[in-house]
């Protein structure tokens, strides 16, 4: 009875060696081979028979024993392994994050806009956008100067406003926009 079951187990190992077992049977046979020294020796002997029949040379050293000895001597890595069934990222989260970002930027741009300055209407209509922005940030004395000044004085005032716009109490978003336009204005002016 025992020899019969041994023969069945041996036949399973032989078929497993040839990759000819059904997956479920293979799991059981594989566990037996991996866990039992006698089955591993059988596996090795079968490999040796196949090599000999095909005329393949065998390595001088026992490579398997050498590899396994090195693996046994290696320190155990205690780092947790990555989760196999890690859920995929949900795409709607990215969309929601994008919409939230747009909403925040929009709110900063619109809610932080300062009230219209009286100086804005007095500056020359053909002046570049930077002048308008600069005028919005003008300090209280500016309208008086602008009202009486000719075009040359207005230009000087614009430079004055531009030079001091960094001190203007505006939101950071507006300020960054001003800086960009200031650079453009300086390039255009001779």
């Amino acid at each position, binding site marked *: 009875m025992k020899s019969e079951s041994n023969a069945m187990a041996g036949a399973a190992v032989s078929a497993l060696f040839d990759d000819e077992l059904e997956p479920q049977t293979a799991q059981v046979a594989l566990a037996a081979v991996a866990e039992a020294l006698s089955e591993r020796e059988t596996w090795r002997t079968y490999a040796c028979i196949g090599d000999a029949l095909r005329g393949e*040379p065998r390595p001088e050293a026992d490579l398997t024993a050498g590899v396994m000895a090195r693996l046994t001597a290696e320190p155990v890595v205690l780092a947790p392994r990555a989760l196999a069934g890690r859920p995929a990222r949900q795409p709607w989260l990215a969309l929601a994050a994008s919409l939230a970002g747009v909403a925040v930027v929009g709110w900063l741009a619109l809610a932080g806009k300062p009230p219209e300055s009286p100086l804005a209407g007095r500056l020359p209509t053909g002046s570049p956008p930077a002048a308008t922005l600069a005028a919005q940030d003008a300090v209280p004395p500016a309208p008086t100067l602008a009202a009486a000044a000719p075009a040359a004085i207005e230009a000087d005032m614009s430079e004055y406003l531009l030079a001091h716009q960094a001190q203007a109490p505006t939101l950071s978003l507006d300020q960054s926009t001003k800086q960009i336009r200031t650079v453009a204005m300086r390039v255009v002016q001779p």
Partner: protein
Amino acid sequence: MGEREADLLLVERVQAGDQQAFGLLVEKYQRRLLRLVQRMVRDAAEAEDVTQEAFVKAYRALPNFRGESAFYTWLYRIGVNTAKNWLVANSRRMLTVSEITDADSEGIEDSVLLRDEETPDRVLMSRQIGATVNAAMEALPPDLRTALSLREIDGLSYEEIAQVMDCPIGTVRSRIFRAREAVAARLRPLLDTGSQKRW
């Protein structure tokens, strides 16, 4: 179940912490990988060291193996890279490394280089094993001998052998097993069992 699926079962066991299952993979592929490495590293002893190193690297990288390619294809790349690194480190001339491609992984036929580097002990052992196996094969009943030859030498599947021999697959399985056991009974005294017990 094909080779790929069978290997994946072994890989999964290794990934679950069964180190012995990796020994089965080493036993299964060491000669194939050794032949590959031997084409690049001429010295037989050094080729064996490189092969061993490749297996150790494969074991370390195995947690990242997801089965997108066959295990041997993956192992083959590790073997080639390990041999290349070894050649660079040792400033040796690389033998047709650029010509070796993945396509070669399944069909490297030449073992001439390996044989050139064989030591007398190895030659003697190989001859003894070969003679013992041949004698055992000669002593087998024809059905058993044919079944095992068709499997090991011609590489036929059980289904193909069943067609050739006009018998059920179960009979093929039984014949191959009985043939192997008969040959193994003669071969075991010759094999070094002491070293096997280390894994």
